[in-house]
């Protein structure tokens, strides 16, 4: 995917990238000429007019109309060209083609989720077909975020009180970084997703597969995949290290104590409740920061996450026949 990356710009993979880069290089080379002139003048003057001995009296000319008009008019013309060019490219960045497919994007601390017209939702990985305009309807569930894909040269703030719009048409298949560029708190720098551009055919296949586990995949294994792709991994570790939230390692079947002093043994129902209504009970020592996943996971996916957390218990229940045992942790493949 690094093909096409230059010293200044990341590889361009959208239909507007070429326009933006052309303007960038126009300003860049104009600047280079100007910088060369300024630097050359400084060097020339300090060599030629370096003070030797007494300063004495110097030239009295402090005004030159022709020169002053020249250095006012030329930059003025240049900046007007740059303004008009930037304006034109900006219109292209803003006018969404009529045949665009629409995807809702939700930013929240600290992950992205995507809702497709087909009713599918995904977290942190936006899968789109190539050569097809995609309109993004952006909104936030908490503070302001910003949706930025350097390879596409697009960026738009994501606001909590209104929709904003961005669009792109990817020209090449591949996986591209998606950054949050409006500071949003502790894990702002980890609010990174991917935009995965696939061929039309692969996109159709992905749509079908997005509904449940693939052939022959165990429920716990599917849960492990969701643990990554739905960004549980951002806050919950599976190696026992406490982070923003409790680790999943060895919690199933153990006693959990809550902020209000109550406690219970972690079971399937408690896990389900924690995913759908995370503020119902807060584990002692943690902040109530987890957002609800209500409407973002279907029943199969909920079951899969429960099965995955069960598989991480100290004494995994054997009667269910789950093969998602803890030994496989080291071979887990992450999505990116």
């Amino acid at each position, binding site marked *: 995917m690094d093909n096409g990356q230059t010293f200044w710009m990341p590889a361009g993979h959208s239909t507007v990238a070429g326009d933006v880069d052309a303007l960038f290089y126009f300003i860049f080379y104009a600047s280079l000429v100007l910088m060369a002139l300024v630097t050359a003048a400084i060097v020339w003057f300090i060599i030629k007019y370096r003070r030797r001995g007494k300063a004495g009296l110097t030239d009295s000319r402090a005004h030159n109309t022709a020169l002053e008009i020249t250095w006012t008019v030329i930059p003025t013309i240049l900046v007007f060209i740059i303004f008009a060019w930037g304006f034109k490219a900006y219109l292209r960045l803003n006018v969404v083609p009529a045949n665009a497919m629409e995807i809702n994007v939700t930013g929240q601390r600290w992950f992205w989720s995507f809702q497709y017209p087909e009713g599918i939702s995904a977290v942190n990985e936006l899968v789109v077909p190539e050569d097809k305009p995609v309109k993004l309807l952006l909104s936030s569930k908490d503070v302001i975020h910003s949706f930025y894909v350097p390879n596409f040269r697009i960026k738009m703030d994501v606001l*909590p*009180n209104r929709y904003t719009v961005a669009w792109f048409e990817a020209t090449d298949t591949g996986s591209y970084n998606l950054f949050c560029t409006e*500071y949003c708190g502790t894990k702002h720098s980890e609010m990174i997703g991917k935009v995965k551009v696939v061929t039309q055919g692969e996109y159709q296949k992905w749509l079908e597969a997005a509904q449940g586990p693939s052939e022959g995949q165990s429920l716990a294994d599917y849960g492990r995949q969701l643990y990554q792709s739905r960004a549980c991994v951002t806050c919950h570790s599976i190696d026992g290290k406490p982070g923003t939230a409790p680790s999943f390692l060895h919690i199933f079947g153990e006693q959990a104590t809550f902020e209000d002093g109550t406690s219970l043994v972690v079971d399937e129902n408690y896990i389900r409740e924690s995913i759908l209504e995370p503020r119902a009970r807060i584990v002692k020592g943690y902040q109530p920061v987890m957002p609800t996943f209500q409407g973002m996971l279907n029943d199969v996916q909920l079951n899969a996450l429960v099965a995955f957390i069960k598989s991480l218990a100290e004494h995994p229940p054997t009667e269910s026949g789950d093969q998602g045992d803890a030994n496989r942790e080291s071979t887990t493949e992450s999505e990116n």
Partner: protein
Amino acid sequence: MSTASANVIPERNYLNDPKGLKSWLLTKDHKRIGLMYLFAIMFFFLLGGIFALLIRWELLTPAVDIMEHDTYNKMFTLHGAVMIFLFIIPSIPAALGNFVLPLMLGAKDVAFPRLNLASWYVYCLGALFMIYALVTNPADTGWTFYTPYSTQTNTAVISTTLGVFILGFSSIFTGLNFIVTIHKLRAPGMTWFRMPLFAWGTYATAILQVLATPVIGITFVLLIMERLLGIGIFDPALGGDPVLYQHFFWFYSHPAVYIMILPGMAIISETVSVFSHKKIFGYKLIAFSSLGIAFVSFLVWGHHMFTSGQSELAAIMFSFLTFLVGIPSGIKVFNWLATMYRGSISLEAPMLYTLSFLILFTIGGITGIFLGALAIDIHVHDTYFVVAHFHYVMMGGTVMAFLAGIHYWWPKIWGRMYNEFWAKIACALIFIGFNMTFFTQFIMGTQGMPRRYFTYLEQYQPMHGFSSIGAFVIGAGFVIMAVYLIAAIFKGRPAGNNPWGSLSFEWLTSSPPPHGNFDEEPVLEHGPYDYDTIEVVATK
């Protein structure tokens, strides 16, 4: 140059007459107040600099090097807030300007000496609030305090913004004082167009300070009320609009950029003429462009918000106005260059900082053109490109000019010279380190590296690492500078009245000047830049 032996420090000068701590704390002498400001801002410059080095240290690698997420987020907020509100805004006007402006005008003091002292105490009070926030639970919002994050975080947003609110009054007091001083206290014969350009730059700055600062005060009061009372101006959960906050904030903070850079330009207009020993080129154009920049600076705030969801039409108009403000700045650079032409150029430390300014500020200005172009801003907005751009303007511009001014007027302030050799070494280190640190960040920015990131993708590590090394080179330069400047106070060679051979009024009086500035009221006999007709001999 070899007449130094004749120089003596006057027995009675503003530093020792009158004596005693009380005489300092209750002083109405603009020179003492300027010096007290200088100590205060240098303390905060040191603090902000330490924060900067800690940030760059942490960013050496993407891993946790010396601090955790939340500490890092507080650190870059502190770096920005301390550097902007406690150092750079008061740096040139309140510290150097206070000292130099009345001397330049041939006045005994500023128009309102008591207000001047009050401004210093108000500054200290504001600083105390910010220090309180610093030692309890520093804000983690970034120096911009964007809502709704700033209305929801549990860090000390209220005491920090209250501190800035209070600091605003000290800035307004200084501005008001300078406006009246320039109108009313010029020496006989000093017409508006025979004033040194430093006075013109300070005048334009003072107008901005008086007109723009109330807006940030009102904005922060609304933010505080939002947090305390939930009035629902900015937080959408309470029915407010977070983008409204951005409009309010930048309506002040864009003019504030010019509160920071105009005084820098004002210093450069002095030093480039003095050290080229040459009449300043295009005096009136430089003077009027300061006022022009000040005026247009009120109309460009929306260029901070091209990706905020503001209307496309507004974005287009703000882009156009942004280019308009670029032109007078460019003209100034050409004027300064033309001043050097056929001069008699001496490359002493103040001139080296002046040349650094010319190069770095030009890069800062040009990259502003990239950012003003709408389609490019969309790509580089909120990336390291913007971080690099404003450091080139603020540090490469204002701080370099401030250092030029410090080195230019240090002999006047203390009556003694610093070590020129070490001054050149420090300047070279700062210039090289600065470019290592921040030029790299332009490339990181266009490659897509977002700002305010605690950790980052491995692909950016080489550039982050190089940038961090540069920061420590800058740090080394400043350590050397601190040593030779402080040494000069105690052991420097006496400078004489006019070590550089300058023509403006402050060099007529002794170094350091007496309590009332001049033994007898000076009368203007020649312009401040008449190096073509007046023979002047340096006393160094």
